């Protein structure tokens, strides 16, 4: 190694001579390589002060220090896509963690009958209501930090931990609701009901019209026509431009044509970033407006008094009672638990939905229409 240093010194000296460097540069050269050589041998000659070396290296060190320590900062994190599911999911509350029961009236009563003179009307009947039950569950995640990690965090990396935890709670809920539509049980139920409740068509104006026709022909449990209007289309992220084209065109968008786009503006699109699909087979899901038609496609239950996510900290079980620094000296702040000094945070939420082995998560099948998006 010392031979290499010697060669480097000779090479640098030749470079300086070629450049016509002043004598002082050659002195710096001696100091620098002499210092490195001294460090390698471990023998201090007393003639090469370390201070000389530091001076020679100042410029590079300073830049490094500026770059690594003074100019450090965190860049803003990614922004997250949201699934604004609220319009398609009816909110409900449960008083506790037990299952709650709801009854759906899915049929009217008998039609009237002609009764002849002195004839007696036949007795009417009323169908049983449909019983539905659901309950809420706890959703949680906890994080444990060492006190050292928080004290050493000069970049404030953990300063937005609470915000990220709250965001994770919302994201989990969005995934949960997204799963209502795309899970195998829900889609299996709709596809088993065939043409009135599902299709294979990719999203086009013509297919939306077919979906609307399917909704328009829905009937109650007695086969009587009911008001069911297509209001929302939840779609894969890959269909954003397709939906925008359909929505923004006054003419039918799939072709250069002059036919009027009757579908335009008749539905509200909702992008679901958690919908699984691979182009060109991108699924979509049409739904009714539960507020207008009383057909509730999906339900999201929360416990009363727990309307949203909360963040909790485990109370420290340590208290500083004195110091060895003398009377009146304030105790240094120390956090965490007595045993390890760790700090524990937890984000918590509570929600649930209707779960059925037959209907999947659909609270009312009449509010749903599914397309696998496979037919060209």
């Amino acid at each position: 190694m010392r031979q290499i240093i010697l060669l480097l010194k000779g090479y640098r000296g030749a470079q300086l001579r070629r450049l016509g460097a002043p004598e002082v540069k050659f002195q710096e050269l001696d100091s620098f390589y002499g210092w490195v050589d001294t460090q390698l041998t471990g023998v201090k000659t007393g003639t090469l002060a370390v201070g000389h070396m530091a001076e020679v290296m100042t410029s590079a060190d300073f830049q490094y220090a500026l770059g690594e320590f003074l100019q450090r900062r965190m860049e803003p994190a990614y922004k997250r896509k949201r699934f604004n599911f609220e319009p398609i999911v009816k909110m409900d509350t449960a008083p506790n963690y037990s299952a709650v029961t709801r009854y759906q009236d899915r049929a009217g009563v008998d039609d009237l009958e002609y009764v002849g003179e002195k004839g007696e009307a036949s007795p009417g009947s009323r169908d049983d209501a449909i019983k539905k039950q659901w309950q809420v569950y706890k959703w949680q995640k906890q994080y444990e930090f060492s006190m050292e990690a928080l004290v050493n965090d000069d970049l404030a990396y953990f300063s937005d931990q609470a915000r990220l935890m709250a965001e994770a709670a919302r994201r989990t809920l969005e995934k949960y609701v997204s799963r209502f539509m795309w899970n195998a049980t829900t889609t299996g139920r709709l596809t088993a009901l065939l043409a009135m409740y599902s299709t294979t068509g990719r999203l086009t104006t013509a297919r939306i019209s077919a979906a609307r026709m399917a909704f328009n022909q829905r009937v109650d449990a007695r086969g009587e026509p009911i008001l069911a209007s297509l209001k929302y289309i939840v779609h894969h992220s890959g269909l954003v431009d397709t939906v925008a084209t359909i929505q923004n065109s006054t003419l039918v968008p799939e072709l250069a044509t002059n036919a009027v786009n009757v579908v335009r503006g008749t539905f509200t699109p909702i992008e679901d970033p958690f919908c699984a699909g691979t182009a060109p087979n991108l699924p979509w899901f049409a739904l009714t407006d539960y507020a207008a038609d009383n057909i509730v496609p999906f339900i999201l239950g929360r416990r009363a008094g727990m309307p949203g996510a909360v963040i909790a900290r485990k109370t420290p079980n340590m208290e500083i009672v004195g110091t060895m620094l003398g009377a009146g000296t304030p105790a240094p702040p120390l956090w965490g638990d007595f045993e390890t000094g760790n700090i524990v945070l937890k984000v918590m939420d509570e929600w649930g939905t209707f779960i059925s082995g037959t209907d999947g998560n659909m609270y009312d099948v009449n509010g749903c229409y599914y397309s696998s998006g496979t037919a060209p």
Partner: protein
Amino acid sequence: MATKILKSDVTRTKEGYLRVGWGSEEHAAMLGIRPAHEDDEIQHKGFALIDPTAFGPQATKIYLKESLRQQVEVLTGKPPKVLKNAPKMFIPTGGAAQGIV
């Protein structure tokens, strides 16, 4: 060309839902198409639009043909089925923590 004959297939499930058979006469009606007649100007795979005039006098031929093609692909294709990558329904099992994956 012989006119296609579609079968009627509408039943009601025990819950009262209408079940319209895939490729049935009623399915074709929902899609706005019917078996073509010889004199139908716009045809695709033996089918024609029930009412080509429904799209207005300005509708071009290429538009009508494409509308017909899209609906015929659905009618004559296989019924929809659960996608291979469809996730399972989330059912809490109790016990260990369980995420949505």
